[in-house]
């Protein structure tokens, strides 16, 4: 396994991208080592296929190296790379089309997630089990997965995640909240088989 935490280069991402733009390949390699895992997590999720995800990973860094000079210094390098990665991954996925997100009411999403139920603890208990969390994530549509990965897994700010997804910050917040409630519903269904979600009563 490649361990990005072994990175002891004191230079910031901004410094490294500026050097990359001037043709310093070893500076760019440091950026690759820092961010490749996050890029691969996103391309894996959007393409749903490890081989295609690796193609998109390579295209992301090839494009980033070529376009290093166009990087705006006020932005985050990680956000910039993730936005390139998402576009690269979506190009591979275009034939499959985009899924439609069902527009359930917020209240219905809350009820499915255990809001007002006897045992909302099931949600937190299920979420502590990595395999259940992964399965519940896998049950969501890509749009829900994307927003959860960018905000909660990669830790991007709302503004940064909105930038990657090409939407406004308000739309991002709404999408994130709905995605979390759907994830909660899916997790709850895994532990409480007779919940509305568990009965397939979506």
């Amino acid at each position: 396994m490649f361990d990005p935490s072994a990175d002891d280069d004191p230079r910031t991402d901004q410094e490294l991208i500026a050097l990359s733009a001037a043709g310093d390949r070893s500076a760019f390699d440091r950026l690759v080592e820092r961010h490749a895992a996050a890029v691969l997590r996103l391309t894996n999720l959007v393409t749903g296929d490890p081989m295609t995800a690796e193609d998109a990973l390579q295209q992301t860094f090839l494009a980033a190296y070529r376009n290093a000079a166009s990087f705006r210094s006020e932005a985050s390098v990680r956000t910039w790379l993730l936005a390139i990665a998402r576009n690269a991954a979506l190009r591979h996925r275009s034939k499959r089309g985009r899924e439609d997100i069902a527009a359930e009411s917020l209240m219905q999403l809350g009820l499915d997630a255990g809001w007002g139920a006897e045992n909302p603890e099931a949600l937190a208990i299920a979420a502590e089990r990595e395999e259940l969390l992964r399965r519940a994530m896998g049950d969501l549509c890509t749009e829900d997965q994307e927003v959860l990965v960018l905000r909660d897994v990669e830790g991007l700010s709302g503004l940064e995640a909105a930038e990657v997804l090409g939407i406004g910050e308000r739309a991002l917040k709404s999408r994130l909240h709905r995605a979390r409630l759907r994830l909660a519903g899916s997790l709850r269904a895994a532990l409480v088989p007779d919940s509305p979600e568990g009965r397939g009563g979506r």
Partner: protein
Amino acid sequence: MKERRVAGILCSEVLALLSDYVDGELDSVAVENVESHLLGCPNCERFGRNFGSMVVSLREELARSPEMQLDVMARLLARLRESDTRS
């Protein structure tokens, strides 16, 4: 779920604000409203607490993996070097 108005705010309004609350993105007045509601509404308090735990677990459990395989990294760096020699 029986909708209640506690501390001047409805359960459904609290439900709508939960992610912003968990993310610390509400202003101080809204935080006070939500917290007063949670204090007087056991249903929302229990759900909100568990919803918050789920968000924390998501960060802790999934951020670690999948790890980057060494061969994937090697192929990526090789591809970048190859493009360098071509240009």
